[in-house]
């Protein structure tokens, strides 16, 4: 497979996953805005913007964090690289370039999302209320993902798509947790209070893991249980360990197909071994923020190694 094709597939997946993450954030933000809370409406939006790494970009364009402005920035603004519109447009552009590496079903799903996006963009603002926008995004992201799973040949292209999905998801889960923990609750004595639990529940909602969590754990919502669920529980589709396991699966497949080991694979293995042995209390001892910072750094290195090993076209 052409290195450039692999690169396009990898980014197609990353952009689709990013669009979904942004939509989830929007949904959860809108939900919080409906509920009076001690932390205040403005802080919530601010923390969500921070999670997408776009707080500064937002501040530069909008004076106040009203829902309309947030919606404009996170859904419609093409200058915001994390906005749903920007991500879907780029995902489709990447898909168009590698049209030959996709099945017609996958292309159809991508292209339909893009065509519908254009009509949403040309509709009068407000015709599409926020909940419809976020539902729409998640539906199309699921359709693309589903078309990939159901129809795509299990060749290297499938692996590069999945590497993109898993890496992006690992990064976004880690960032979301980090923001919640670090920005809102810098003081350890808040941990375990009612307010804290409320924030954590919000976090679960942001990952559509609210119900799944209760099925998996039951009882009282505690920080330790949530951290366990989102970091160490392989049943949770957005848990760090699930994402890293996915990276390993697809890097191993590439190694077998190409009969050649890679730095990316070695690094992903180390990351997985670390998570497999970790326990929640140890993570809290290290400091959740420190742990997450380290994890985000590790994933960035894996991303770099994937680029050097497969996508750059410079290996001999």
């Amino acid at each position, binding site marked *: 497979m*052409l290195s*450039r094709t692999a690169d396009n597939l990898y980014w197609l997946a990353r952009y689709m996953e990013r669009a979904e993450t942004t939509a989830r954030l929007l949904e959860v933000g809108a939900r919080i805005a409906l509920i009076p809370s001690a932390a205040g409406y403005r802080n919530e939006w601010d923390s969500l913007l921070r999670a997408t790494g776009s707080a500064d970009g937002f501040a530069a364009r909008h004076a106040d964090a009203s829902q309309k402005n947030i919606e404009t920035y996170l859904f419609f603004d093409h200058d915001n690289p994390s906005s749903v519109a920007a991500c879907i447009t780029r995902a489709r552009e990447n898909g168009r370039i590698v049209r030959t590496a996709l099945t017609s079903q996958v*292309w159809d799903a991508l292209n339909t999302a893009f065509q519908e996006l254009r009509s949403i963009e040309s509709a009068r603002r407000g015709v599409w209320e926020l909940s419809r926008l976020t539902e729409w995004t998640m539906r199309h992201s699921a359709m693309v993902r589903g078309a990939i799973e159901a129809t795509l040949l299990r060749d290297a292209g499938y692996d590069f798509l999945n590497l993109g999905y898993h890496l992006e998801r690992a990064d976004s889960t880690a960032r979301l947790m980090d923001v919640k923990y670090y920005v809102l609750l810098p003081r350890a004595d808040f941990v375990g209070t009612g307010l804290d639990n409320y924030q954590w529940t919000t976090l679960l909602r942001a990952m559509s893991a609210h119900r799944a969590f209760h099925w998996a754990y039951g009882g009282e919502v505690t920080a330790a249980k949530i951290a366990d669920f989102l970091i160490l529980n392989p049943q949770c589709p957005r848990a760090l360990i699930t994402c890293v396991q996915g990276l390993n699966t697809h890097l191993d497949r590439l190694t077998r197909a190409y009969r050649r080991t890679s730095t990316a694979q070695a690094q992903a293995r180390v990351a997985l071994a670390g998570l497999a042995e970790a326990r929640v209390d140890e993570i809290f001892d290290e400091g959740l923020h420190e742990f997450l910072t380290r994890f985000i750094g590790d994933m960035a290195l894996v991303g770099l190694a994937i680029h050097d090993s497969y996508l750059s076209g*410079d290996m*001999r």
Partner: protein
Amino acid sequence: MTAFFNEMYQGQQVRAPYAALGDWMQSMPAELRSLKQAEAEQLFRRIGITFAVYGEGGDPDRLIPFDMFPRVFTAGEWSRLERGIKQRAKALNAFLVDVYGRGEIVRAGRIPGNLVYQNAAYEKAVVGIKPPKGVYSHIVGIDLVRTGPDDFFVLEDNCRTPSGVSYMLENREIMMRMFPDLFRANRIEPVDNYPEILRRTLASVAPAKCKGDPTVVILTPGHFNSAYYEHSFLADLMGVELVEGQDLFVEGEFVWMRTTEGPRRVDVIYRRIDDAFIDPLCFRPDSMLGIPGLMDVYRSGGVSICSAPGAGVADDKAVYTFVPEMVRFYLGEEPLLQNVPTWQCGKADDLAHVLDKLPELVVKEVHGSGGYGMLVGPKSSKAEIEAFRARIVADPGNYIAQPTLALSTTPTFVNEGVAPRHVDLRPYCLVGESIELVPGGLTRVALKEGSLVVNSSQGGGVKDTWVLAE
């Protein structure tokens, strides 16, 4: 006004090829028709076939209008065309080998030397090279128009990288999906083996240094190109990689592509970019599209390039006049397809005639394409004609003129129902170890009433083209 040949009706009689379509047309009330038209449009959009027009701006995802009324040829009509097209493709290739070799046709005085050797499309960098199997132009698109039951004229030859074949294939695909009954009731020759024949043709001209199964790629300028859809479509159907210049590099005596498994050798490049851009070391140094050193590998027989650099000299509008001469000279046969009489404005006599008859003629730029920079005399205002006259006088050598042909019409769906509209035809002839032609081609239709310009950039549309089995 001239009476135009209508391909469906002869007086009140329906001509044989269209016999089955009369009922079909009757059985389609306006509502059903607009439903079907919307369905077709959605299919095209979902498949992603869109067409961006250079210099027009606007929607880059614009669709070429698709007309559902098919254009039909009988087996007899087609076999005559087929022989003529193959003959022409053979002669054009013989000409190319000759003019980059000994130049016998010039020595024999059958074509003026300056027309060949001073031609902007004549590529000095490939003089003396004989490409594998003696083929320069592997895909020859011959634009034909019809003026009567048995009268076909060649409007122009396209020896470089004729586009539009994806429409031939997709138009058929969509018609079969929407009107399966029509295909059950009529015996229509299939065209869907085109990609496979193209792949075989390209593989058959692999360079001598290639042992074993040749690796074929399509070279595209990239996804911003208006024909990108076609490039990726063909790559997909042939099962070959679609590469950009940045994906290829030269090392040693071969061309390689960058893959996730490391470098892989490339043997045959079906390029969809112009000569000027394929190798910055040999042609335009500012080109970002090409592969530095490609021409050296090509010259030493390490890679085949399709069409071969330099092929453009055969489809030049001034050289066109001499194609019938080429058929006689190289094949010793009489040409089966006629040329349109052409006046070279560069010649004093011709120029005088052209300027005199300007309101009746079609005038084209020698190197123009896509329907730009041309004058259709009978369809132009006095002011337009006078403006064009000034341009011709300023640079006569840049123009040729032809009589305005009475292009045939076929029934076409329009707002008011069904009405005749003018059409042309581009079949795609494949030249490798053998010469192949799939039964069909791209029919372009001028959708505006009375218009003779079929180019998609000027409001033209496309139709499915049927050849009936015997």
